[in-house]
């Protein structure tokens, strides 16, 4: 199992952002759905080792991120796209992706090819030498995805990856996720229900810091039968589960 969480909690003062989450994940694409404030971003930050849990046990890629040497090893095999990723406007696409490849301690000789492959994978080849400040929001998001995949991570965490992408790019993105999920654990956090349905083999729905549903997209759809809120079957399932979870 690449991800093993046992009763993980994270609080900010009195706010329980993550309130007892237990997960075991192997390879594949795993979706995390939920409304704003559900705890998705805090969960991903903990998985990215940016935030320590307040309590509970975590094992990532078979290591305990609480130990600094293990944390460094985990981070070398990790790819992360934060929800709010700022960019260094004076960097080019290639320079930005290369910078994070170096910070992830990829071996230097392997970096140029890895950067080229990542940039091509997100279809930004024609913009490889363009400065980031000249790119659109959707292109910048693709740059973010490129830096997340440059080191061929075993654990890939993407927080709202499709923000700003047009429908065609979202289709290509889902296809990329399915390919990456064949050899890695890919966790996609999003509020776009249809992205999850198309790319993910399994889905968790979070509300108020807890996981209130875990199963396949079809099982989530099934929960929505008879429920009226939502334009599509998966959305109805999503709404139905949330409605049940609320007191």
């Amino acid at each position, binding site marked *: 199992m690449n991800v093993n969480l046992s009763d993980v909690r994270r609080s900010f003062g009195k706010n329980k952002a993550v309130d007892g989450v237990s997960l075991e994940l192997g390879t594949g694409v795993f979706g995390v759905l939920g409304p704003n404030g559900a705890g998705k971003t805090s969960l991903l930050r903990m998985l990215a080792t940016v935030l320590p849990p307040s309590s509970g046990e975590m094992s990532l890629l078979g290591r305990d991120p609480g130990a600094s040497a293990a944390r460094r090893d985990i981070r070398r095999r990790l790819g992360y796209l934060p929800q709010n990723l700022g960019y260094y406007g004076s960097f080019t696409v290639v320079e930005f992706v290369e910078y994070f490849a170096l910070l992830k301690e990829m071996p230097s000789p392997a970096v140029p090819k890895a950067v080229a492959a990542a940039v091509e994978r997100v279809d930004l*080849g*024609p913009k*490889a*030498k363009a400065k980031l400040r000249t790119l659109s929001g959707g292109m910048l998001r693709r740059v973010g995805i490129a830096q997340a995949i440059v080191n061929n991570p075993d654990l890939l965490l993407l927080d709202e990856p499709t923000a700003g992408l047009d429908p065609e790019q979202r289709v290509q993105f889902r296809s990329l996720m399915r390919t990456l999920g064949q050899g890695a654990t890919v966790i996609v956090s999003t509020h776009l229900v249809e992205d999850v349905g198309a790319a993910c083999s399994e889905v968790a729905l979070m509300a108020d810091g807890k996981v209130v549903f875990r199963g396949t997209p079809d099982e989530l759809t099934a929960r929505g039968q008879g429920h009226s809120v939502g334009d599509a079957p998966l959305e109805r399932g999503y709404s139905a589960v949330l409605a049940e979870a609320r007191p």
Partner: protein
Amino acid sequence: MVMDDDELIAALAAGDETALHELFTRHAPWLAARLRAALAVPDAEDVLQETFLAIWKGAGAYTPQGRPQAWIWVIARNQAALLLRRRGPDTAQLDEIPLPGLDPAETALIRAEIAAALAGPDGDLLRIMYVQDRSVAEVAAILGVPAGTVKSRAHRARRMLQATLRGTR
């Protein structure tokens, strides 16, 4: 606006690296096919890579003479020859009798070029005429076409062969 090959090479020489991708898209497939006639897959891929890097570095020295594909092929052929020479004669795919005046590496490539030029119906026609030593009338009967057609296709095939061989020197 679609640029022709000369314009793309000029753009590349001026520093527009996106032109290289367009050149690659246009020319890598047929280059790969030609190289595969003489080289194994890994070698063909290496030579393709070195060819386009050489195009990138040498774009400034290119002067348009109406045959950019020939310029590209000469670069590819030279890169292939370099690779085969580095490998040595044992690992090259060679016929036993080298062409006179050429080293074995060049020979393999020229054979590949001739094979490519002779692929297709016109090549078949030349083979029947010259290898099987048939007359125009016999070839016309075998192929089921008029004698005049045989003559004009043979003429065209000979010209193509000449052009191919000229391009190798």
